């Protein structure tokens, strides 16, 4: 296993197929912590810049007159097999982030909505947007304090029974792994060829 302290631990030469899963959550909810707990590299951060006109930079004068939107996000990775590697993105759920969803995250296998029960309202918008993008997701409650039980959280978020809801501790590798496994099991049902995904 590559060193988890090295940012530059390279991929295997045989790496050929990368997959995406996105962890969405409000500020301070523990997205980067969760990504870092399961990642084989220390989480890296980068950003995407958008102008009103869309992607990229036009000419400098016009750019100065425009609103440039910068969306920062973190990511880590997990080598799955000789050829497959999973990228795990920690992304803010605020409104401007969803402008870059198609550009950055279309083709993701699924999403994890990370929730702090003290600020449940931060998650409503993310859940609404994921449903809009028909992106399957699970909800993980990062337990900072005891807080309401899962049933109460499900009610507060109006989550249908088909959406898995679990407790986690984003600091712990095994807990993050359990959330990922829960998501993959959910995806197996969601993408099952025998039925249309629930709308």
């Amino acid at each position: 296993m590559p060193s988890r302290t090295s940012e530059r631990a390279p991929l295997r030469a045989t790496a050929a197929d990368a997959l995406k899963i996105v962890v969405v959550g409000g500020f301070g909810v523990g997205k980067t912590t969760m990504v870092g707990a399961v990642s084989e590299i220390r989480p890296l951060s980068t950003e995407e810049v958008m102008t009103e006109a869309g992607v990229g930079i036009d000419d400098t004068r016009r750019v100065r007159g425009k609103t440039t939107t910068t969306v920062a996000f973190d990511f880590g990775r997990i080598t799955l097999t000789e050829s497959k590697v999973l990228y795990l993105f920690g992304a803010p759920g605020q409104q401007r982030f969803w402008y870059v969803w198609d550009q950055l995250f279309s083709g993701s296998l699924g999403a994890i909505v990370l929730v702090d029960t003290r600020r449940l309202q931060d998650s409503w918008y993310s859940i609404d947007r994921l449903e809009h993008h028909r992106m399957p997701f699970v909800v993980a409650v990062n337990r900072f304090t005891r807080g309401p039980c899962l049933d109460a959280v499900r009610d507060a978020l109006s989550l249908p029974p088909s959406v898995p809801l679990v407790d986690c501790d984003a600091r712990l590798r095994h807990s993050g792994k359990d959330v990922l496994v829960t998501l993959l099991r959910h995806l197996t049902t969601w993408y099952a060829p025998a039925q249309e995904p629930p709308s």
Partner: protein
Amino acid sequence: MRQRPVDDEAPDRLYMITGGRTHADESAFDTVSLIVGECEPTPGMQSEHVKILRLTRRPMAVVELSAQLRLPVSVVKILLCDLLDTGRITVRHPSAPRSAGRPSPELLKEVLVALQNI
């Protein structure tokens, strides 16, 4: 949201790096397309291209290049287009469908088993 250097100097610096071009062919690269350098840098090459060729001696995802170069993802894609057009890199695209379509049950099973074993 924290401020990073790109925020402060974005227009001029990014304009210089991309030669004023606005978009890469978006379909050419996914955020996690794996880039493989196919040659060593040559004298006179743009410094960002040199860095990319050094970083891609082993496969590296577009988003990792973006983090290492401290450039926005869309700017990295423009730089990669130049290198792809001149045959200096190859691209290993993700197999998962980008929009319509769904991942195969075999793929999901493979990912599930691998995650259970990490």
